């Protein structure tokens, strides 16, 4: 789980350099990321599907989704993958 969160943080720092000093925590909503919009959601989707063995819909990446919820979703999928 920690590894998944660290990977998500790495992706957010790379995709959204404008985030600056904003703390990236499990409680952070995607909508809290500066300039997060529908286009940015696609970039995040691309990153997640490249780095984790799963497909994630754009609906999952709505502004209200927290990073912790996202990490939990990814963890469930990774655990169930044979």
């Amino acid at each position: 789980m920690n590894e998944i969160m660290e990977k998500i943080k790495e992706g957010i720092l790379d995709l959204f350099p404008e985030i600056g000093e904003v703390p990236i925590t499990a409680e952070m909503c995607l909508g809290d990321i500066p300039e997060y919009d529908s286009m940015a959601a696609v970039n995040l989707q691309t990153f997640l599907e490249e780095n984790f063995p799963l497909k994630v819909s754009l609906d999952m990446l709505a502004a209200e989704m927290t990073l912790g919820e996202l990490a939990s979703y990814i963890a469930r999928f990774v655990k169930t993958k044979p």
Partner: protein
Amino acid sequence: MQRACILSTGSFLPEKIISNEDLSQFSHEARNLIVEKTGVQARRHADETECTSDLAIAAARKCLQKVGFPPENLQGIVLSTSSPDRLQPATATRVQHELGARAAFAFDINSVCSGSSFGIAVVDALIRSETCRNILLVASEMYSKILNRKDFATYPFFGDGSGAVLFQAERGGSRGVLHSCLATDGSRSDIICVPGGGTMLPFEKMPGPRSAYFRMRGEEVFAFSLDRGPVIIRRLLEEAGVTMEEVKCFICHQANINILHGIAGLLGIPREKFFVNLDRYGNTASASVLIGLDEAIHEGRLMPGDLAVIAAFGGGLSWGANLIRI
């Protein structure tokens, strides 16, 4: 007083067609959004061996050959680009050499997507001032080589292409560039940019390769275009003493079909009066209005004597409009 009149036009689009389905780096779900968000169905990408001046030369040759104008008779070449061959020298200089336009001065202008509108104003001023009697204005862009192919906010929406217009001085008559309006808001210069590679962020100081890619804040650009586009068109026509109804065709920068529809609605103009080719070519930055002008004339949408409005908006932020009687 001599006026800058259109003697010929030309355009060039690379052969390689990239459809939305070809953009496999994005999910199928995302690819389905491209048309909805922008109207773009396909775009052209230059070959990896080509550079911006190659596209410019191709459009320029078509423009000159259409009317049998000898390149050695050209007195000036102005090239609009925001994706130059190199930081220096001007991309126009290679165009001048390859065309054999030995007598022509040549320089670049860069006002990003509004470059051609600014270019028309510059060319008009040079001809009206009797600095020269003819100028070839070319706009050439190769954004496929300055975009991050994984950035959905930019990569799907831009395409490569070039357009050219040969302007010649005429005295009397009613043809030519009748009026231009230009504007800039430098306080928003970060909204559309390529951050790295210049003196503000030299290559060795770049935190990573992303700094070398074009980027834009899409929602702000959309709002800006809808806000400033109608304003500059109204201002242009009011200052020129022309009504909307007298304009045969509006050739606006081909950024996004929703912007074009929005501008048409705000101005109360039928959408059919707006020329559209972004579905086939994407956003070709400053080349879009010159490509559109060439195609509109070729398709008979604009005939001799018709009034055309060119309007463009883009990085700077900048926006401009020109009124031309064909």
